[in-house]
């Protein structure tokens, strides 16, 4: 299991890059789906792709596979424009899941493997392997429609993994999964990343993304509005303090602070103040000011949740 490293560096741009999306634009009639979208994904890590509904996530993923043609911009893989051959080494799990309901799952996976340049026998072996790995052993000849919803999702994941892809793109892979399914999915994504695979997935479940991803890109209206290591985004550019002083419900003491030390972001109804420290300011000077105003009931550093970052940059809830 990969955990978010607290020390991930801020130099995203200088890291090794495998997938690059450069200035993608796409219009659907009057709707601008992609508006100069640019970001890159390094190999060997799980990369989250976030944005409100309609931000252009699915269009971006489809563009990677050439399923949607872009009006402008380019998708590059390992420094080269994506070719048909390269695409056959990509794995894709679309948001709108789809397989043949009436086809046996082993046949179905074999077929999809062969469409990715596998021989029939290699595809069959890989299909059996994934069916076993995903806990579906014994159901090889079952038709997809005979499986439970969760198991159909597992088959869909197997379809994306069959040919051992170098790039794995998953659109909302956690949607509709039960907690066990979420754990399995998390483990598989982390394991693929450790094996050197570039993993890009979109999600609305920001707590999951926080937990799984090293880095994310957040898009809004077809443009990237924030990107970088999760830890950097959560820390933000200024450390923040949460302080509550008894008998000071309006937090007047905080408003008297020297703005060169800290500024008030907000004060809630209970009088808890959220303060943004200026860089290099000493937090103990804030504590002194608080104690001078009354009994300090609470004093801590705040970290922003990814969901707050998301709300800040998109103006919408995830």
């Amino acid at each position, binding site marked *: 299991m990969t955990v978010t490293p607290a020390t991930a560096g801020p130099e995203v741009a200088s890291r090794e890059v495998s997938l690059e999306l450069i200035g993608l634009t796409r*219009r*659907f*009639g009057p709707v601008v789906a992609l508006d100069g979208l640019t970001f890159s994904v390094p190999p060997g890590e799980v990369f989250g792709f976030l944005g409100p509904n309609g931000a252009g996530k699915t269009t971006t993923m489809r563009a990677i596979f*050439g399923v949607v043609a872009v009006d402008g911009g380019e998708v590059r893989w390992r420094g080269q424009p994506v070719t048909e051959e390269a695409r*056959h080494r990509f794995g894709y799990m679309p948001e709108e*899941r*789809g397989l043949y309901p009436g086809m046996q799952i082993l046949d179905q996976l074999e077929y999809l493997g062969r469409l*990715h340049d596998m021989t029939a026998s290699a595809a069959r072996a890989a299909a059996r392997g994934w069916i076993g790995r995903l806990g579906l052993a014994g159901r090889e000849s079952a038709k997809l429609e005979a499986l439970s919803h969760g198991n159909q999702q597992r088959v869909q994941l197997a379809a994306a993994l069959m040919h051992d892809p170098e790039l794995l793109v998953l659109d909302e892979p956690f949607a509709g999964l039960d907690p066990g399914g979420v754990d399995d999915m998390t483990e598989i994504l982390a394991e693929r990343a450790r094996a050197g695979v570039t993993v890009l997935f979109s999600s609305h479940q920001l707590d999951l993304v926080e937990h799984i991803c090293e880095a994310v890109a957040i898009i809004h209206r077809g443009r990237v509005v924030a990107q970088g290591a999760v830890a950097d985004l959560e820390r933000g550019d200024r450390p923040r303090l949460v302080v509550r002083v008894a008998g000071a419900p309006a937090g007047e003491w905080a408003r008297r602070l020297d703005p060169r030390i800290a500024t008030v972001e907000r004060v809630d109804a209970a009088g808890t103040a959220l303060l943004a420290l200026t860089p290099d300011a000493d937090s103990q000077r804030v504590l002194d000011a608080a104690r001078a105003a009354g009994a300090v009931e609470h004093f801590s550093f705040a970290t922003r949740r990814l969901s707050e970052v998301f709300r800040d940059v998109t103006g919408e809830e995830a």
Partner: protein
Amino acid sequence: MRSGMHRRWLRLTAIVAEREIRQRGRSRAFAVSTVVLLLVVAAGVAIPAILASHAKPQRVGVVGAPVAGMTEVVREAGHLTDTGVTVVPEPSVASAEAALRSGDLDVVLVNDTEVVVKQVSLSGSSGSGGSLPSAIAAVAGLTKLVGQLPPGATTSGVTLPVRGLTPPSASLSRRLTGLFTVVLVWILISAYGSQIAMGVGEEKSNRIVEVILASVRPLQLLVGKVTGIGVLALAQAALMVATFLGVGAAVGSSLVHGAAPGIVITGAVFLVLGYAFYCTAFAAAGSLVSRQSDVGTVILPVQIPLILAYALSYTVIYANGASTFYRVLGFLPPTAPVAMPVLYAAGDVPAWQAAVSAVLLAVGTVWMARTAATIYERSILRTGSRVRLRQVLGRAPVS
């Protein structure tokens, strides 16, 4: 490099085709439809032949004298052809012909001069009373010859002439073989065409198309699908033709006599070209819908030309000479697959005209395949409401 890409393109397309053949070929629906169609063909060939061998008694009118001698001739002819006969003396040729026209009589023997029937068939071996008039003519002719021998009179032939009241036409068996061809072309194109549309609609509505199109291009999926289903359609057609010929030969059906090589070849050519013309159109229609239940609505316009040609084909089969309108249909690519085999089988067009029609159909097929591929590529990933043709065929598509 280029040929390598070409091979790769074909290989992926073949994998798509192979899946269609395997999945559909082993489905219960395919097995059941094959068995039912073969039974229908076998029954269609065998039942008329079996009924014909127990032909209903024929009413034979005789004109002239002596009635006893002519009755003897008719009885002998009935015996030879294993047909029950009833002899009806008629006062004059005119009254006999009137009875023939009204259907009161089947055959008329005019003493020593001729045999009259309602219509002479070219092969002389078809349908009701087809062989009885010939036998009567032969026996009567022989009788006349024997009677004339002592005076040493010359004879122009051993059999009397057989005259039809209405002009002769292509034999009924030829026409019926043409009908068989038309039914086959119609059934296969509409049945497999709707399967194509349903299959495309299914792939689009359950979104597997997005998974597949991540590794193959839309054109490969389209070509693979129609080829795979086409192979199954041809296999089923070949089985039906084999059954038609096999059962026909076994029961000695007159239908099979009409299966001249020309008709069979024309039927096969128009079946293949007709399928090729329509298969991509059906696929394009299927790609317009978002729900599989809407497929029926979008394929109806595709089927209308076929329905028209099929419905009107009966007028050609049961009439003498096709209308100008139907001849025109025989050259228009959408209706030619059904209309031209009928026209050719009925003897209404010469072989070269069938060949011209086939070339026009082949050209039309290329045009249709390009248009349909464009529609398919532009609409296969569009979800939501049904895609309008105007949206995908405009100059600036917004897919």
